[in-house]
């Protein structure tokens, strides 16, 4: 997730939010690289949801997780090992 696709990524998620979806889980298991633009887009989506819903991420590979930690995003996003656990967490919150 880089400058090359961060805008499309954000637009797609904002589209989902505008359609009324406020409980989102993003599966990063196939994301091998996350740069500052990708992180910015992700935070933009989080701001878009605001207090109306939840945004959880899961499936972070080691390097991506390290990026989250360096920027303290592990304190901002709920991070889970996989989709099943993330979805279960959302269900329990609802």
């Amino acid at each position, binding site marked *: 997730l880089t400058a090359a696709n961060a805008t499309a990524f*954000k637009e797609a998620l904002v589209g989902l939010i505008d359609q009324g979806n406020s409980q989102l889980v993003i599966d990063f298991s196939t994301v091998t690289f996350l740069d*500052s633009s990708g992180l910015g887009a992700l935070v933009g989506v989080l701001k878009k949801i605001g207090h109306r819903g939840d945004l959880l991420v899961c499936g972070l590979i080691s390097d991506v997780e390290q990026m989250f*930690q*360096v*920027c303290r995003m592990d304190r901002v996003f709920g991070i889970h090992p996989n989709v099943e656990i993330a979805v279960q967490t959302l269900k329990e919150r609802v």
Partner: protein
Amino acid sequence: MTNRIKILVAEDNIVQRAYLSKLIEALGFDPVPAQDGQEALDLVRSMKVQIVISDYQMPKLNGIELTQAIRALELDHYVYIVMITGSEEDSVKSLALDVGVDDFLNKTRSPVMLNARIRAAIRLINHAEELAERTRVLKESNDHIREDLRAAAAAQRQLLPDIKKDLLGFTVASAFVPSSSLVANLNNRFCGSENDEYFTMFCGVIDTQSGQLDYCQAGYPSPYNVAPTGDAQPVGTGGFPVGMLDFATYENETTAIEKGGALVVSGPVPTV
């Protein structure tokens, strides 16, 4: 009706004025009649007239004087001026161009030629408006950059240790705040933008006598504290980037750089 382009018709002959106004209306524009040069000038001052079609010979102000007066106004839009000419000599037309007339229309006032002149005028007006808009955007960007530079300069001044202010006749800017306060101030300054922009930084002050490094990490990759033996340890455990989250907090941390050791900083942006 109010959004249509206003075309002022400055013509002292009532029949010609009414005829031109009818033609202009039939072409889909909003005619504004004026019976002499002074009335035309007053109307240009009081409403957004974008095109003026003016006779050369008129009472009070003739076509040349009217053009000079319009060009002397400080309007926020361009006024395209077409002068109606008859048998005037080339010297009159040359003077008209010199004072700011854009085009001429023959006394015959052919509807086809009138339409062509107006379309040419609209093309130029549109270009002028585009240019004005681009200039406005550039000025805004320039102001933004200057503001950012002022903030960066203020940040640099805050990093300076508190030293004697007068040095060999020069006034030295000096101030000191802990690195975490500096980063927090910058975060307050840059939070709230509409886009997803943010930046990362690692800032600190090294006491060269004791080797103590006081620092604050804000999303920037950890530098390495390299001991004289070659052992390298990352410094810091991370921190929120600047300008991303208004609730971000920043801590000041401390580490020691051994005498003969080094602090190695790398990486322009946090990447993995």
